[in-house]
């Protein structure tokens, strides 16, 4: 089969691998119809996640048809399923408590040592996301072996096209959990750093959950436009003093909850971020936590800090003083997809949640390397890339978020930020 393969930092290629087989009794083999490049794949692409090896198949957002099942799988051949990026056994302490991304049993024993010494406890298995999380071959491929297939995959109705349900596997559920962990209450202002796919879905989720005001922060105009389209107010941090603006937009009180949907590669020259960047570049295992620092300073006293953004290593100058003295609640973690996906599927069917507004490009799996490059370096225009293993090389279609389709965006001409013209350059 053909699969997107890691060769090194900023070097991914589509190579030929042997087709996967049923190895354990609860396995199933899925023929993939759609798969996507996730923002967290870019952390692998940038080489800031340890234990990604040459030859690893990436990809953890995928769906398709069941073509083969092991004797203990409850799936049936021919079923159409979406597959959560977290691999969960369903029977350990954590799975029984609906903490599916903390599964004790899905990461092979010999792969657990690294995260156990780094984090004190081993991580669970994830598809296509470094050997720290099991080194499982991922889903940017024609086929994938799905362990514990009786627990993870969710059968989806045929009348919903791939694009509508694909993001249940990760980013939609992740955005939803981010808002859920932020706890949206009547009258609340929820602020989301990052208008990437997870940030956009987190903002949309907060809107759906009834937040009074949702504010998205980014620096890419087109991504901010998408955030505005789903009902968020926007702040461009290159134009505006973020902390001051957030106070002023909340009557001086500060936002009730903040969501860091950026993670370990935050941009900008504030909040000690340049030092973090330097340490990350020289391989000191450092996270860039500029956004997290700013979010903790911004949130009101007694507020909630929700972190769906990926961090992997260590950081310093973490604002412990603000965390304690302001009485903040910090909630984090990989997504417990299986806890949310049934409810979310229902909301998609009912039209409550828009899942396709952020897709900018759909292309052949064969062109995945080009997709990675553009998603990494042309973030303003390339907001979400869907890959089709069945498409011929070179075929590419514009999604609803494609700049070429700008007329389709609902943002009115008058909604361009009024202050943006007043920037003093000199």
């Amino acid at each position, binding site marked *: 089969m053909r699969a997107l393969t890691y060769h090194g930092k900023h070097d991914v290629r589509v190579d030929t691998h042997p087709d996967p087989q*049923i*190895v354990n009794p609860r396995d199933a083999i899925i023929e993939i119809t759609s798969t996507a490049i996730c923002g967290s794949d870019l952390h692998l692409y940038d080489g800031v996640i340890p234990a990604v090896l040459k030859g690893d198949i990436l990809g953890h957002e995928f769906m398709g048809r069941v073509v083969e099942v092991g004797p203990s799988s409850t799936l*049936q051949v021919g079923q159409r399923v979406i597959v959560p990026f977290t691999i969960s056994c369903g029977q350990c302490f954590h799975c029984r408590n609906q903490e599916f991304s903390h599964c004790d049993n899905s990461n092979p024993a010999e792969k657990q040592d690294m995260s156990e010494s780094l984090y004190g406890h081993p991580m669970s*298995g994830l598809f296509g996301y470094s050997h720290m999380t099991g080194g499982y071959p991922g889903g940017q491929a024609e086929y994938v072996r799905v362990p514990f297939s009786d627990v993870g995959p969710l059968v989806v109705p045929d009348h919903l096209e791939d694009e509508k349900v694909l993001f249940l596997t990760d980013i939609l559920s992740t955005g939803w959990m981010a808002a859920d962990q932020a706890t949206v209450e009547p009258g609340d202002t929820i602020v989301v750093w990052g208008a990437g796919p997870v940030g956009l879905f987190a903002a949309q989720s907060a809107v759906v959950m009834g937040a009074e005001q949702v504010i998205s922060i980014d620096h890419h105009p087109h991504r901010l436009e998408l955030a505005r389209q789903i009902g968020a107010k926007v702040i461009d941090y290159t134009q505006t003093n973020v902390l001051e603006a957030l106070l002023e937009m909340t009557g001086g009180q500060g936002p009730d909850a903040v969501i860091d949907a950026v993670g370990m590669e935050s941009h900008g020259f504030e909040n000690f971020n340049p030092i973090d960047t330097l340490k990350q570049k020289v391989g000191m295992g450092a996270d860039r936590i500029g956004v997290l620092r700013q979010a903790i300073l911004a949130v009101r006293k007694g507020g909630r800090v929700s972190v769906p953004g990926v961090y992997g290593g260590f950081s310093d100058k973490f604002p412990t003083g603000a965390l304690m003295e302001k009485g903040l609640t910090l909630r984090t973690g990989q997504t417990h997809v299986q806890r949310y996906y049934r409810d979310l599927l229902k909301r998609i069917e009912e039209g409550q949640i828009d899942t396709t507004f952020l897709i900018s490009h759909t292309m052949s799996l064969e062109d995945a390397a080009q997709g990675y490059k553009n998603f990494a370096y042309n973030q303003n225009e390339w907001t979400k890339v869907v890959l089709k293993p069945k498409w011929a090389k070179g075929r590419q279609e514009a999604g609803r978020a494609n700049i070429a389709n700008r007329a389709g965006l609902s943002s009115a001409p008058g909604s361009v930020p009024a202050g943006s013209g007043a920037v003093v350059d000199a």
Partner: protein
Amino acid sequence: MDQDRSDWLHQPRPTWPPESRDPISSDPGFSAVNRRIDEHLSQGRVSRLTDQLTEHKAVAAATVLGLGALAGLAAYSLMGPSQPQVQRHAEIPRLPDDAPGRTAKQARFGDYAVAGRSVTIDRPRQAIFEFWRDFRNLSKFMENIEDVREVSPGVTAWTIRAPLGMTMQVTSRIVNEKPGEQIAWRSTEDSQIETEGKVSFRDAPGGRGTIVEAHVAYRPPMGALGQMVAKVFSAEPSIQSRRDLKRLKMLLETGEIATNKNQRGEGGKFQKAVERDIQNNIAAV
């Protein structure tokens, strides 16, 4: 009024600016000034130069602080604890704590290499006890145990993996057994290596299953073989037992042992056991 007059909440609030000091509020020029201030604020986009300077100062200060801390740490690691600190520790003896002995910072077990680990498995105590009591099951989750045969009741012959593709034979006899609670075993004299072990089972609190606590000790024999054995077992005995117990948990809770291998031949020894079963039962297109 029937309200308590001492309640400060009902006192008239002071106003600001105090009326006596507000001569310009009646000034017609005041509102014009106010408007100019408003206009100025609404533009609000002044040069960031001052901000940046402050940032640079903050960065420099942080760097100096960090270097200072590093120097302090280096001095401590070179010179060790100070004399008064050592004295304080001598004057106030340590309280023996409740942690298992194997977690002591300085532990000695004579010639033995000892590993002890515990794991919580969400299965009934009796079921786990019976699984372990049938020693032939050990090779299903223990990396270094290739095969276990029952010689006579309570006596088993183990084939243990050694470096360079060699194997060793150990005969093991159960020396203590409390049904449902504990099993202890020791190697007999004709074994190639001296080893003993103990595993205990107790109910986990809150209906969380069973806590399995295993201790394994090896005494490497003399000679070249012993050297190699020592390397295998004493190098990472705790890691090995940790992994073994994780696999036991996987097997008993989920019925299989997780692997990232995509091909049946690559699955390793833990997948071989299930392969035949799988090959006969795959449903496919």
